[in-house]
C-alpha cells in the first residue's frame, strides 16, 4: 500500500509532477519488443569469450595462442602481448587525481583473482570461441594468496600489487577529544560487526558490441550506467582518442551499480580493432559472479560512549573493507561509508579509522547504497543493543540523537535544508503499531519480533565531486517536444520522470513529449551517469532548464507572429495566447512551422539546459520489519515491512514505490540469504549460479507498506531528492534487530542464515 504525506505549500503544487503516469517504456517491455544490447546483431558480427585465471594469485610465465588461432572460425586471439600497457581504474573515476589507484591493465602478466582475464578470443560463433579458449596454453606460477582483508594487512601477507602495500586507501576522521569522551561516558558499548559480499544480479549480464570503422572510429554499444565516463577511460585503456570513440547505450536490463564499471568493453574493442569486424562480448551468469562486481564485505568495530541522558558522548568506528584484486570504487565506497557513519547521529567526539584493502578476490564495486548499508548495519545494530541494555525506547532514542532540519554537518558543512527524519520515524512507527502489544508466540515453535533501522544518505555526489547534466528540449512541427539527454534509465523509470518534468514545464500532456530509450555520446549532450541517486536531481534540473530556454524562444516568436507584447503572453495546453486578447492565439506547432520553413523568419526551437546543483540534498528514511523465526530450524520469515522515505518531492509516486519494493527485495537477501562464499583452499567463489546464490523470489516476499514524505529541498528541481539507492540501506539492520527481538540473541554478522540462527540459539560456533 502506498501513502503520500506532503509538506508542500499550495504554490509548490504541480499538474503532471506528482502523478503516477504510465511508464513510457511499459508497452515495449510487456511485448518483449524492446531491444537490449544482447538482442542486436550486426552483419559479420563475431562473438568473443574471455579466458579467465583459475588461480587467485599467479604470474603468467608463458602463453601460447597458436593452436587457438589455427582453429577454424577463430578470427583473433589477444593476450597481454597485444594490449596497450596503459594503467586505468575500471570505476572510470570522475577526476584523475581523486585518490583512485590506477592499478589495472586490459591484460597483465599477473592475475589477482580467480576470473581475472588472461586472454580473449573472437570467433564466428560462441561455441568456436569457447573451444578456442581450451586451446590456449598458459603456464602459471601460482603465488600465495589472501582472501581475508584483516589477514591481507598483516606483515608477511602476499603482496598483491608489486611495489605497494595491500592498503588501497585510508580515511581517518577525528573530532573532539574521543579518548576523554569515552572515559567520561556513563556507558561504553564495544562490538564487532560484519557484512558480507553480495552481488547485483541484474538479470541482463554485462554485454557490449564494438565496431571499428575505416576512419579509425570505434563505436561501442554497451549496457552501461555512465557512457561519457566510460568513453574517457576506454579511450585511455586502448589508446584511441576520445573523439574517435562513440558510446551508444541501448536500454539497460538492470544495473544497481554493477554497470558503473568498465568490464567487457576493452576486450571487445581490441578484438574489433584487430579483426575489423563487429565483436559481441557477453558475460555468462558464472562470469557475472566471478568477474563482475560485488558489494564490499566490511568488518566494523564500534566503540560508543553514551551519557546518562541517552545522548551520544563518543562515537568511534574502525572499518576494514575487502576491496578485492583491484581498487576500482573502494576509496569512495569507504568515503561514503565514513560520511554516513558520521551523519547518522550527532556527536562531538568522533573517531573514524577506515581502510580498504586488496585481497585475492573479485573486485568490489559500486552497489546501490555505496558503503552505506555496511555502516548503517553496524550503527543501527548497536543502537538496538544500546536501547535494549539501557531500556531506552528505540524510536525516541533515535529521534533525540539524529541530525534534523537546520543542523549543519560539522565535517562537510552541509546544511540540512529540508528533512523529514522525524516524520519518517514516527509515521513508520505508527503504521506498524510500534509500542502496542504484539503476539510474540506464533504457532508451534515460532517466535515473532519487531525491529527498526533508519538511514541518512546524500543525493548525488555534490560536495566532493563534480555534478552537472546537460539536456536539450526540441519543439517539433506538430507542437510535440523531444527531450535529448544522456541520463541513463536502468529500469528505474527516470525516462518517465523526465517526460513528466518536460510536460510540466511546457504545460502539455506527457504523450506529447518524446524521449528515446537509448543515448549516444555523438549526439546526446553530456551527463555523468546513473549513480549516487543523482538522475532526477541533476538531469531533471537540466531538462527543466532546457524547457524554460526553448519556451522563451517560443514566446519571442509568438510575440512577433501575433504582434503582441511578449509580457502579455501566456502558455497553456501547447498554445500561446494573449492574456488581454485571448483570440490572439497560436499553437507551438504553428510557431515552429511558421518560423522553420519561412525564408524570412528562421529560428531555432532547441532549448539547452545545463544544471549544476549548488548543494547536496541529504535524504532520510526508516524501515520497520516484523519477522517470525522458527526456533527449531532457525529459519526466518519476514512478515511485513513498513518503509518511509523522504524524497523531497515525488515526481512519480508509483515509480518511487517500485524502487522501494525492489530495494527491499535486495535488502532482505542481504539480511538473510545472499552471500558470496570463497573456497579457502582454491580462492574460488563457490556459489556461481542462482541455484546456489539465493535471491528472494515472489514466494518469499512480505507485505510492504510504503510511505512517501515530501519535504521539498531547494537544491534541486521541484524540491526533489534521491530515491533509487536509499531504501536498501536500512533493511538488513532492521531485519537483524527484529530477529534479535524475536529470539533474544544479538547477531552481529550478516547474513542471518538459518544455520547461523540455529547455531547461535544453541551456542554452536558458525
Amino acid at each position, binding site marked *: 500500500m502506498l501513502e503520500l504525506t506532503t509538506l508542500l505549500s499550495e504554490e509548490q503544487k504541480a499538474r503532471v509532477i506528482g502523478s503516477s503516469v504510465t511508464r513510457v517504456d511499459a508497452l515495449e517491455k*510487456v*511485448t518483449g519488443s524492446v531491444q537490449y544490447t544482447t538482442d542486436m*546483431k550486426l552483419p559479420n558480427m563475431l562473438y568473443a569469450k574471455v579466458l579467465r585465471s583459475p588461480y587467485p594469485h599467479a604470474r603468467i610465465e608463458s602463453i601460447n595462442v597458436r593452436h587457438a588461432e589455427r582453429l577454424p572460425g577463430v578470427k583473433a586471439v589477444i593476450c597481454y602481448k597485444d594490449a596497450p600497457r596503459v594503467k586505468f581504474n575500471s570505476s572510470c573515476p570522475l577526476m584523475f587525481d581523486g585518490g583512485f589507484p590506477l592499478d589495472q591493465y586490459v591484460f597483465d602478466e599477473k592475475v589477482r583473482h580467480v576470473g581475472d582475464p588472461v586472454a580473449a578470443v573472437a570467433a564466428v560463433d560462441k561455441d568456436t570461441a569457447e573451444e578456442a579458449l581450451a586451446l590456449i596454453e598458459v603456464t602459471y606460477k601460482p603465488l600465495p594468496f589472501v582472501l581475508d582483508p584483516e589477514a591481507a594487512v598483516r606483515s608477511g601477507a602476499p603482496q598483491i600489487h608489486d611495489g605497494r602495500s595491500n592498503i588501497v586507501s585510508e580515511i581517518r576522521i577525528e573530532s573532539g577529544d574521543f579518548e576523554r569522551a569515552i572515559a567520561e561516558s556513563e556507558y561504553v558499548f564495544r562490538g564487532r560487526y560484519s557484512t558480507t559480499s553480495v552481488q547485483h544480479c541484474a538479470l541482463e549480464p554485462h554485454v557490449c558490441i564494438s565496431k571499428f570503422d575505416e576512419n579509425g572510429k570505434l563505436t561501442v554499444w554497451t549496457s552501461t550506467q555512465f557512457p561519457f565516463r566510460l568513453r574517457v577511460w576506454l579511450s585511455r585503456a586502448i589508446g584511441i582518442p576520445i573523439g574517435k570513440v562513440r558510446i551508444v547505450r541501448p536500454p539497460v*536490463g538492470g544495473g544497481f551499480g554493477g554497470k558503473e564499471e568498465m568490464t567487457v568493453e576493452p576486450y571487445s574493442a581490441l578484438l574489433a580493432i584487430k579483426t575489423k569486424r563487429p565483436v559481441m562480448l557477453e558475460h555468462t*551468469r558464472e562470469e557475472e559472479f566471478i568477474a563482475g562486481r560485488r558489494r564490499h564485505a566490511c568488518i566494523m568495530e564500534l566503540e560508543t560512549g553514551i551519557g546518562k541522558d541517552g545522548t551520544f558522548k563518543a562515537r568511534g568506528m574502525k572499518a576494514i573493507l575487502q576491496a578485492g584484486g583491484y581498487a576500482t570504487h573502494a576509496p569512495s565506497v569507504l568515503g561514503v561509508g565514513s560520511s554516513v557513519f558520521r551523519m547518522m547521529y550527532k556527536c562531538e567526539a568522533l573517531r573514524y579509522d577506515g581502510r580498504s584493502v586488496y585481497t585475492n578476490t573479485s573486485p568490489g564495486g559500486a552497489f546501490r547504497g555505496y558503503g552505506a548499508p555496511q555502516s548503517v548495519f553496524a550503527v543501527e545494530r548497536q543502537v538496538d543493543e544500546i536501547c535494549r541494555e539501557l531500556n531506552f525506547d528505540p524510536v525516541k532514542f533515535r529521534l533525540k540523537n539524529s541530525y534534523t532540519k537546520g543542523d549543519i554537518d560539522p565535517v562537510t558543512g552541509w546544511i540540512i535544508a529540508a528533512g523529514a527524519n522525524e516524520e519518517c520515524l514516527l509515521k513508520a512507527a505508527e503504521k506498524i503499531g510500534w509500542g502496542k502489544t504484539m503476539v510474540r508466540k506464533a504457532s508451534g515453535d515460532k517466535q515473532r519480533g519487531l525491529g527498526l533501522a533508519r538511514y541518512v544518505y546524500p543525493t548525488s555526489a555534490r560536495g566532493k565531486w563534480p555534478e552537472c547534466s546537460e539536456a536539450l528540449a526540441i519543439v517539433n512541427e506538430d507542437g510535440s517536444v523531444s527531450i535529448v539527454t544522456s541520463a541513463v534509465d536502468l529500469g528505474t523509470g527516470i525516462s518517465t520522470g523526465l517526460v513528466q518534468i518536460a510536460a510540466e514545464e511546457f504545460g502539455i500532456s506527457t504523450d506529447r513529449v518524446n524521449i528515446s530509450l537509448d543515448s549516444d555520446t555523438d549526439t546526446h549532450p553530456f551527463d555523468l551517469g546513473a549513480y549516487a541517486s543523482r538522475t532526477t536531481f541533476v538531469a531533471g534540473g537540466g531538462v527543466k532548464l532546457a524547457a524554460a530556454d526553448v519556451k522563451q524562444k517560443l514566446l519571442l516568436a509568438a510575440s512577433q507572429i501575433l504582434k503582441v507584447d511578449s509580457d502579455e503572453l501566456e502558455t497553456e495546453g501547447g498554445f500561446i495566447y494573449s492574456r488581454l486578447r485571448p483570440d490572439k492565439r497560436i499553437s507551438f506547432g504553428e510557431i515552429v512551422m511558421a518560423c522553420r520553413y519561412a525564408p524570412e523568419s528562421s529560428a531555432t526551437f532547441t532549448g539547452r539546459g545545463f544544471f549544476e546543483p549548488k548543494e547536496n540534498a541529504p535524504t532520510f528514511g526508516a524501515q520497520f520489519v516484523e519477522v517470525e523465526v522458527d526456533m527449531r530450524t532457525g529459519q526466518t520469515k519476514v512478515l511485513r515491512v513498513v518503509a518511509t522515505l523522504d524524497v523531497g518531492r515525488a515526481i512519480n509516486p508509483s515509480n518511487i514505490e517500485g524502487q522501494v519494493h525492489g*530495494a527491499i*527485495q535486495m535488502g532482505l537477501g542481504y539480511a538473510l540469504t545472499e552471500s558470496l562464499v570463497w573456497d579457502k583452499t582454491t580462492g574460488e567463489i563457490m556459489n556461481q549460479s*542462482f541455484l546456489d546464490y539465493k535471491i528472494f523470489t515472489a*514466494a518469499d516476499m512480505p507485505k510492504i507498506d510504503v510511505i512517501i514524505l515530501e519535504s521539498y529541498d531547494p537544491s534541486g528541481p521541484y524540491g526533489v531528492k534521491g530515491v533509487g539507492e536509499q531504501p536498501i540501506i536500512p533493511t538488513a539492520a532492521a531485519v537483524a534487530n527484529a530477529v534479535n527481538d524475536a529470539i533474544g540473541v544479538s547477531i552481529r554478522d550478516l547474513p542471518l542464515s538459518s544455520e547461523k540462527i540455529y547455531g547461535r540459539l544453541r551456542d554452536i560456533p558458525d
Partner: protein
Amino acid sequence: MNGVRHEVLVKPHWTLSYVLRDILNLTSVKVACGTGDCGCCTVIAHGKAILSCLTPAAKADGMQIETIESLSIEGRLHPIQTKFVEHGAVQCGYCVPGMIMNMKAFLADNPNSSEEELRRVLGGNLCRCTGYIKQVEALLKARDELRSSEGC
C-alpha cells in the same frame, strides 16, 4: 512457432532458446543464466511453460511453441500485459517476457488459483528490480479478468 511452421536444421547441442533467439530472431526470449534458474527464457510449448534454455532444440520437433511475440498480434494486449502496464509492474523489463509466459500458461490452467499458489509459481521467475509486489498485484487483477471473461 507462434502459429507458423518453421523448418530448422539443428546441431545436437543447440538449445531451444538459441534457435528461438539466434535463428528465428525471437529476441523476447532472454537467457539470463543458461542453467534454468531464472525463468527469463520461459516459453509455452503445447500449453505448458517450459525453460527454453534447458530444452534441446531437437526436442522441439513438432512442438507448438508460443513466445510473447504471439500475445499482442494486431496491437491487442493480453490481460496480463495490460495489467503489467497499468500497475507499473515493469522496471528494466528483462525478466518480463518469461514471467508473462509462465503466468499465462499457469492462469490458463488454474483460473481459480489463490494468491499463494500464484506467488509460488511466479517464484520460478527471478526479478531484481520490482520486489514482485506490483507484478503480483497485476497478476491477481489479470486472473480476475481472465476468470470473468471465461464466465466461471
